[in-house]
């Protein structure tokens, strides 16, 4: 498909259309000891419920962010979406095609190629033995977008210019670049496959703030130019506030609250969301004593019964320890999974 054709199709398709529909997605990891140990110690299988039934929709041109503390399963969701992991159960629809059923995702290459991923560590995600131009050209040649070598070279030059590097940088190796420049190369590589949907797993957390600002600005620019849809994974709420359209908060493999950015940050409902927002260091009110948050994330191998947040929750009651809350849609479009909110115990 020529670039022209891709562009036209995208303009036609943009609107209120759902690009990714995730429904009750589940992924367990088996971390059991070996069979013989299990027999001798009479222990059962051990499962890490990394993602335990989450549902959300992403519309075209949006940025949907997932936030949460380490170990909450946000990166697992990113890997499930791009197909690096197979879901244990649930459904994953990309532009109307079910992806969860395919045992081997390479069987749906036309879908696969419309998604690309940007990884956290720009030092580990680029092959140190390849020249930058080869790294960026790989998606082009692999998908046979352009077969003519001089044209490939020209396209690589264009991509490099687009991400703020010069075409001459293509001759260099990754080690000759700083962290921010490497992340630009990762973005150029992701764009080379002409994707519509980018999964960004903590793309700026390995970078300094001033470089982070450059990368975030670049990502926003590219989103407008190509009408890209982002699934953005981050633990930094300020970054999430800056880039997102919608935000989902994850805790121990579950989405506890998801809503429009404004709603979530101005009217956080779930006690965990409130706690996270309280914990952000604030530059404006210097010297303020912040509300210290008690406790830590429990182990996902043995999550608490009922609502997983109840041991740390100031509003926990008997029901929270027994019954797992289901997500409730509120009148402003926010979804919250909390008994206290449902029973109007907290506003």
């Amino acid at each position: 498909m020529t670039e022209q054709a891709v562009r036209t199709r995208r303009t036609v398709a943009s609107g209120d259309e759902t690009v990714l529909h995730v429904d009750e997605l589940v992924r367990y990891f088996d971390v059991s000891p070996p069979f013989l140990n299990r027999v001798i110690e009479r222990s059962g299988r051990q499962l890490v419920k990394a993602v335990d039934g989450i549902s959300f929709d992403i519309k075209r041109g949006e940025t949907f962010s997932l936030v949460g503390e380490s170990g909450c399963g946000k990166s697992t969701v990113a890997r499930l979406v791009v197909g690096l992991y197979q879901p244990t159960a649930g459904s994953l629809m990309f532009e109307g095609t079910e992806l969860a059923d395919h045992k081997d995702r390479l069987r749906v290459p036309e879908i696969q190629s419309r998604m690309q991923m940007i990884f956290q560590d720009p030092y580990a995600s680029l092959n140190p033995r390849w020249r930058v131009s080869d790294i960026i050209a790989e998606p082009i040649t692999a998908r046979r977008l352009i077969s003519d070598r001089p044209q490939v070279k020209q396209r690589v030059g264009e991509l490099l210019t687009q991400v703020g590097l010069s075409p001459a940088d293509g001759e260099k190796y990754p080690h000759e670049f700083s962290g921010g420049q490497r992340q630009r190369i990762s973005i150029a590589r992701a764009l080379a496959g002409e994707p519509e949907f980018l999964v960004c797993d903590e793309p700026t957390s390995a970078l300094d703030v001033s470089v982070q600002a450059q990368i975030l600005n670049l990502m926003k620019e590219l989103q407008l130019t190509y009408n890209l849809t982002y699934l953005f994974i981050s633990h930094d709420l300020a970054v999430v506030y800056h880039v997102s359209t919608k935000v989902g908060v994850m805790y121990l493999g579950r989405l506890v609250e998801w809503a429009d950015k404004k709603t979530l940050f101005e009217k956080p409902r779930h006690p965990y969301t409130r706690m996270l927002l309280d914990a952000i260091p604030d530059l404006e009110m210097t010297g303020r004593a912040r509300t210290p948050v008690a406790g830590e994330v429990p182990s996902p191998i043995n999550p608490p019964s009922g609502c997983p947040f109840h041991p740390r929750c100031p509003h926990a009651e008997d029901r929270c320890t027994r019954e797992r809350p289901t997500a409730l849609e509120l009148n402003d479009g926010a979804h919250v999974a909390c008994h206290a909110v449902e029973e109007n115990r907290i506003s």
Partner: protein
Amino acid sequence: MEADQPLLQVNNLRIEFPTRRGTLVAVDDISFHIDPGEILGVVGESGAGKSLTGASIIGLLEPPGRIAAGEIYLEGKRIDNLPYEKMRRIRGQEIGAIFQDPLTSLNPLYRVGYQLVETIRTHTDLSESQARKRAIDLLKEVGIPGAEERIDHFPHQFSGGMRQRVVIALALCAEPRLIIADEPTTALDVSIQAQIITLLKRLCREHRTAVMLVTHDMGVIAEAAQRVAVMYAGRIAEIGPVQDVVKRAKHPYTHGLMGSIPHVGHAAEKLTQIDGSMPRLTEIPQGCAFNPRCTRVFDRCRAERPDLQPVDGSEVACWLFEEEEKKVGYGD
């Protein structure tokens, strides 16, 4: 004259790395002091020299890096030229250290209690059982629940936040007067980060311990520190009270740095960005190191290197302020 002698005084410190292609100057002529009970934040991008400054104070500069010039005084006593054995006594007893990764600062093969007792007995003359009691008290003080049992656990049995608390307890063993905390919260989640900062602040208040808090996270500095030093390419660009630096940044670099931090509730379509990146140590430009990226650069910046000079309450190394002062002077 100040009534109090500063706890730590660093004068014209210069750290060099001799290499085959010539000498690299990683920290170039920096001076600052820390008062008792004060938290001094040191911020800057990676490679600005902030960790090296911390390492040189505790005498843990890795060869071939060396202090090429300058002096470091702890309570008026010079410590940068002490022999290894003497420095070893000071390290731990008078200066404690907390590093970024709590897993690497603890020995995975020993129970935390053993490591605490060993450190306590090295620096004090307590008996085994007294030291153990003190270790339990320390663990309680840093907020580890069930300290009596936890003392016999191995480091891997603690979570990241708890491990960092153990490291803080380890640094506090001999009640040092100065703690060098190098990125103590970087490896931790926001909610745990908040707990650790609160803990550090409380310890400072109660023990009058001074802390040099090295981090790249401006938010952490704004919460914890009283004064902040902004480093760029091995030099201090600006140093002053935290409110002044955060809200009324003077140096163009600090200004850009503040603008590039995203805020919650502050809806900007675009973040301010400083174009380009920090120069490599081999390519530090002549004049002010920031001049190729500076939006307000003029001729003098490219030729001469500015020194720190007082500008209402803070100290700034930028020619802009020299010029302004002159203008004010001519006006009189």
